[in-house]
């Protein structure tokens, strides 16, 4: 993380920190806390997708599937087998990671259109399974009676507590990702995005890195899925269909593919758009999402962050004085 990231971290952290305190003062918008909890959960998915698509350049239309695997694993284990949610979450994450690993080995050999279609196909298959395995998932009528989350022996029932829990996890994930991208691994991912052959020729095991970042995105999505499950306490396959994968894609695109901050910004914005402002035009939702996606892809490929004026002051990554002149 560089200076800019730390400053943003402070600013955004402060905003997120005081948001519920301010919002709860006004009755009309007090439910924004609830919207922000969803935004936080989706942010986790989008952070993973931003790493995968924005940095490593590998498109995935299957994020809703990994979100769903995490959600249903958690939901089934807690509601049917009485497992503690905190024990179910790692199981769901491990399952999602294993599936991503298995499916990723052949999938990530594909590029461009083929990769998009393969992940799309996989996502739809998972959605079909969630709807068909009625014995396990409850099928289209859904899975109910899922317990909520407990922390330190007390059930988390208050939305404000949920809010801080979710956003705490988002910030941990964000710090992890920021560290990764400003490092050897991050450079390798960006290199794969730009010139895969050259990256391989410079000694980067491209296949391994693509697989690892794919698994990472699946892990984040599964954690998000598990949180989602215990927050809403009932599940329906409709939350994990193709449209949701497209929504995650849209969130990342709107904020800015090549910025983790952008991913969070886009997610918060679109969650508000979807949960709040579009409720009146529910029938227009799909059309509007399509239009936004089209406009962003055509005219603002860098997303919202690219519209922010460049950070003031010269960029100073100190270059160390070459000690021995290199000879």
């Amino acid at each position: 993380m560089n200076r800019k990231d730390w400053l943003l971290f402070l600013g955004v952290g402060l905003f997120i920190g005081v948001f519920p305190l301010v919002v709860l003062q006004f009755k009309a918008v007090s439910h924004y806390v609830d919207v922000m909890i969803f935004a936080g959960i989706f942010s986790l998915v989008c952070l993973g997708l931003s790493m995968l698509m924005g940095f490593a350049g590998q498109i995935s239309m299957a994020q809703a599937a990994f979100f769903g695997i995490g959600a249903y694993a958690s939901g089934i284990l807690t509601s049917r087998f009485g497992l503690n949610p905190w024990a179910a979450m790692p199981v769901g994450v491990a399952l999602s990671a294993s599936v991503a690993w298995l499916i990723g080995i052949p999938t990530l050999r594909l590029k461009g259109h083929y990769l998009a279609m393969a992940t799309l196909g996989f996502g739809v298959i998972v959605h079909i399974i969630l709807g068909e395995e009625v014995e396990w998932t409850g099928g289209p009528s859904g899975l109910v009676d899922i317990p909520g989350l407990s922390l330190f022996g007390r059930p988390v029932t208050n939305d404000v507590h949920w809010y801080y829990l979710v956003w705490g996890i988002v910030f941990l994930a964000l710090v992890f990702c920021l560290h990764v991208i400003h490092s050897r691994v991050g450079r390798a991912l960006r290199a794969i995005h730009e010139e895969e052959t050259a990256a391989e020729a410079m000694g980067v095991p491209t296949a391994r890195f693509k697989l690892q970042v794919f698994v990472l995105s699946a892990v984040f999505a599964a954690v998000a899925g598990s949180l989602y499950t215990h927050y809403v306490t009932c599940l329906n396959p409709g939350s994990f269909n193709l449209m949701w994968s497209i929504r995650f894609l849209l969130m990342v695109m709107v904020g800015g593919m090549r910025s983790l901050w952008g991913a969070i910004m886009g997610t918060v914005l679109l969650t508000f758009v979807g949960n709040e402002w579009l409720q009146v035009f529910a029938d227009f939702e799909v059309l509007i999402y399509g239009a936004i996606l089209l406009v962003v892809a055509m005219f603002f490929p860098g997303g919202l962050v690219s519209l922010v004026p460049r950070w003031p002051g010269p960029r100073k990554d100190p270059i160390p004085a070459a000690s021995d002149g290199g000879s």
Partner: protein
Amino acid sequence: MDSHDFGKAILELEDITMQFGGITALQGVTYQVPPDVIQAVIGPNGAGKTTLFHCISGLLQPTSGCVRMNGHRINGLPPHRITALGIARTFQHVALFKSMTVLENVMLARHPRTHSGFLATGFRLPGMRSEEKQIRESAACFLDFVGLEDDAHLEAGTLPLGKQKILEIARALATEPRLVLLDEPAGGLNMRETEELGELIRRIREKGTTVMLVEHDMNLIMEISDRILVLHYGRHLATGTPVEIKDHPAVIEAYLGEG
């Protein structure tokens, strides 16, 4: 089979054949590159020079034949493993990471000599910080070596072509190769830049790195190479010192015949 008479050769090519569908790009090329030399590979267009580099660096698998480095077979290994073993390359059509800075391009190339993975970097484990610092310092050294230190923070895509070519070389050197393959490094350079390039290539050899280069600029070749391999239609045509090659009847005919 590894106990060859040419055990001291850094690179051995044994009967390399490369076919694309019905087209034969390389036909039974056998050759040894001794260490610490500047080895040129020349030949008319379509002679198979770049294909040969692809076969050595692992971007292509030869249809048959064997590539050995210091006696160990390397064909069949993925390109990143071959780089880690000590063969680096540049690309004929510049393949820099254009939106990364000049320094970052070279830092990326420290990849095979460093280790931190996702967990180490994500959690900032102690070893990773010192490694990152060391990557930055050694990358700066390599920029210094080729003379690009002043451009370290520019985006690589914004450099003029001449500097991009030099950056490609710096990036290859940063992987600490024992053998570096330069694919037309002088292509698109003006005379002064070409002269400086020749100087740089000599300094690379003096550092103890064997240089293999494909080049069309005959003045440069004749001036700096120790040995020349001539390919013609994918076949080994002639070998020798620049003086020998200059007067080699088969070579003259091949080039004139192309005319």
